[in-house]
């Protein structure tokens, strides 16, 4: 039983950043009303976003929107429509919400925005951007909307070299070339479609702002290594969109992030934790149950502080020398490529070969002095679940850190049983206590593990 009634201490600076998500949808809707074009985009891990920004094209992200729909408790209507249209039920939950949304828009609302749509809805796009990073759903989903809309899809490729392969200069060379080619071709496509040229100075400025914002976010999250951890995962997810989607004005985002940094730093100096007392420090993998975020409050009442999340949603490790690259497209491409390959060298040194998704957790668990890891197995997201068994075994083998797996889904409330998960969480605490003691007895691991 919980000893005290504790809630997560939310960061004040978070609210301004969280509001920027709302701004993204508001701007999209305003653009639609003004007759300006709006695009839909997959998360591209900064491969396309600076180009969109520099071309002044309003962009909304259906993956993010689906999470918002789930968080607002309105997913089931769209999921049902998607199922009724014959899509298999195991497909990505985000995509199923979007497919159901578009089905409703086209078949139930004469092409208009469904009146019940959260946040005012998604405006109809003039183009959609697919992206090949991380999962097949993000390659196929927009294409499958062709039965509802005549909106064109541009598919942007990326390279995904393996851990050992990334050590090979040839592989680096052709991966970089592919990523650069894709940027240039995408620019050319947008220029043709919009009938205007990219302002290269503005593009350069967007890149600079993107790098500044990313580094500032990275630096802020590094402060979470402190004990007690000053920032909970719930705040992390709330402040993620401004840098991951580059939503809103970037200079304003940089200001907001500076305020966030200052507040987190102040908490560190004052030894204020997001959860107090902080009994357990946990990693979270991968995507949360957006429909049941209050679940984390219940865990906070037990003293569980979530101190680090997946590599996939964190800003990349800062890459030295980026500013020295004069060609903006190359600078941009190197930044993007570094996202998936930034932990490859660490993995290779440890004779492990899942350099993204899997291996970064080893580093995070050490650096953030974690007692355990929470794996949210997602029925409809292979990309965010495939590495779970391997990573759990890896954490135990390398660091003697236990993990806790809860099955659920990113959007489908019906697949998640919070009460059962809480009962199991109580039992898992015994594992965390046991292994914490074991690590201390065995001085394991040596250097940077700081038992709570």
């Amino acid at each position, binding site marked *: 039983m919980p000893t005290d009634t504790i809630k997560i201490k939310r960061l004040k600076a978070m609210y301004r950043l969280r509001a920027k998500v709302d701004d993204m949808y508001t701007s999209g809707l305003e653009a639609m009303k003004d007759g300006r074009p709006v695009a839909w985009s997959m998360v591209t891990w900064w491969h396309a976003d600076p180009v969109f920004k520099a071309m002044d094209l309003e962009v909304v992200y259906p993956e993010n929107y689906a999470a918002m729909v789930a968080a607002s408790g309105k997913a089931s209507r769209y999921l049902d429509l998607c199922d009724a249209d014959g899509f298999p039920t195991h497909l990505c939950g985000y995509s199923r919400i979007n497919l159901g949304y578009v089905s409703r828009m086209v078949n139930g609302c004469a092409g208009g925005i469904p009146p019940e749509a959260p946040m005012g809805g998604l405006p109809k796009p003039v183009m959609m951007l697919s992206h090949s990073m991380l999962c*097949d759903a993000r390659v196929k989903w927009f294409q499958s909307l062709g039965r509802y809309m005549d*909106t064109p899809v541009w598919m942007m490729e990326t390279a995904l070299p393996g851990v050992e392969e990334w050590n090979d200069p040839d592989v680096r060379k052709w991966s970089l070339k592919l990523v650069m080619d894709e940027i240039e071709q995408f620019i050319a496509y947008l220029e043709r479609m919009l009938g205007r040229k990219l302002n290269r100075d503005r593009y350069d400025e967007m890149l600079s702002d993107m790098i500044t914002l990313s580094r500032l976010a990275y630096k802020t999250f590094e402060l979470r290594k402190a004990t007690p951890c000053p920032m909970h995962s719930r705040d992390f997810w709330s402040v993620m969109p401004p840098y991951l989607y580059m939503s809103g004005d970037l200079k304003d985002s940089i200001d907001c992030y500076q305020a966030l940094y200052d507040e987190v730093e102040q908490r560190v100096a004052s030894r204020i934790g997001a959860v107090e007392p902080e009994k357990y420090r946990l990693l979270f993998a991968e995507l949360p149950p957006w429909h049941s975020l209050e679940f984390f409050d219940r865990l906070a009442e037990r003293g569980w502080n979530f101190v680090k999340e997946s590599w996939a949603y964190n800003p990349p490790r800062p890459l030295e020398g980026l500013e020295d690259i004069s060609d903006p497209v190359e600078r941009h491409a190197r930044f993007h490529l570094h996202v998936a390959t930034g932990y490859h060298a660490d993995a290779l040194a440890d004779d492990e070969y899942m350099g993204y998704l899997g291996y970064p957790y080893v580093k995070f668990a050490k650096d953030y002095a974690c007692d355990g890891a929470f794996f949210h197995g997602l029925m409809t997201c292979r*990309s965010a679940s495939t590495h779970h068994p391997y990573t759990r075994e890896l954490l135990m083998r390398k660091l003697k850190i236990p993990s806790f797996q809860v099955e659920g889904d990113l959007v489908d409330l019906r697949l998640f049983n919070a009460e059962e998960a809480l009962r199991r969480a109580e039992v898992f605490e015994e594992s965390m206590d046991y292994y914490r003691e074991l690590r201390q007895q065995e001085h394991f691991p040596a250097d940077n593990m700081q038992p709570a």
Partner: protein
Amino acid sequence: MLDTLHGMSRVSQVLADRSARIRELKAQGKKAVGYFCSYVPVEILTAMDLVPVRILGDMDEPVTEMDTVLPTSFCPFLRNCINTVFRGRYDFLDGVVGAHSCDAQEKSIHVWKSKIKYEFYHYLDMPATLHPWGADMYRSSLEKFKSSCEAWTGKPLSGEALEASILAHNRHRSLVRELYELKRFDPPLVSGSDTLRILTAISGLPVDEGSALLEAVIQEARAGKIQADTQDKKRILVVGACLDALPLIRLIEDFDADVVMDDNCMGARTYFRDVSITKDPMQGLASRYLDLTCARTFRETVAGEFRKDHAADLETRFAHLGNYIEKWRVEGVVIQLVRFCDPFGYEVPELKDYLNSINIPNLYLETEYTTGSLAPLKTRLQTFLETLL
């Protein structure tokens, strides 16, 4: 034994123990390289005097070794295949090649590499589109695969050897197509289940041995020696990712129907397109392998279009099925999806749209790659087959 059995008898012998012939070859000093998917360019392995072995699953074998490897909400076919490896069924492998043909393969190959150490391991990154600049990258990736094989074996690969291998595999593919021609007869001269048995047998043999076996089987089939029966049956096309197991086909055959054509990775998808003989063999390989008819590829009718023409899009993606339906006089299509397969999963409604547009009855079935999971599908399949006129 190799010299005494021919045709379907030899097929049965190979299937009784797919590893037997590989072990014989290994005793002679050859090395075996495992792979899963039609996107691994076996021509390069053959040219290096390596034996490519397609790793298959076993629907009747429980998955027991995957708890620390892959989750249950994952491609059950691939999970089963890797389980067979972890259970030691492929303990003769010297190396493994994985391709980024789908997300499941790309991720599982990295986990696998972390868990089992082979002498040789190669991961082949590849684009998801037919963009020319992506094709350039893929060609470079193939060059790296070649040099990786050379470094491992300590032997250089000459252009002549690669061309000879391409020709050998083209001949092999043309023999499979010849086998499929025999299925155009009514009744077909080779049943769907025998076709799969033959294809499974050759998937673990060196290319020339496989071709010799195909020739013998074709001869037997032409002589009417392997035709199961002559009664009139419904002619079915099965579409899906990978179908390497007999139970589904036998289920169809149980209801007076025959699988006369397929579009899957064990069959037509792998064998219906040759490598063009080009001055630069790598270019021919790159062109062929990027353009297989798998759902994993993002196909566009017009690259960089500003308005999508859905009918044209369906034609671009599925017209080959229309050709099969016409040529093999198909009466019904079974869309077979292995649960958790995203590339094919997203295609289902549009594939049905296409089949409906050409007035061909179709049925969508989702399986979990276990024999037990087929039982609930029986009634649906039976009803569908009975409705075919």
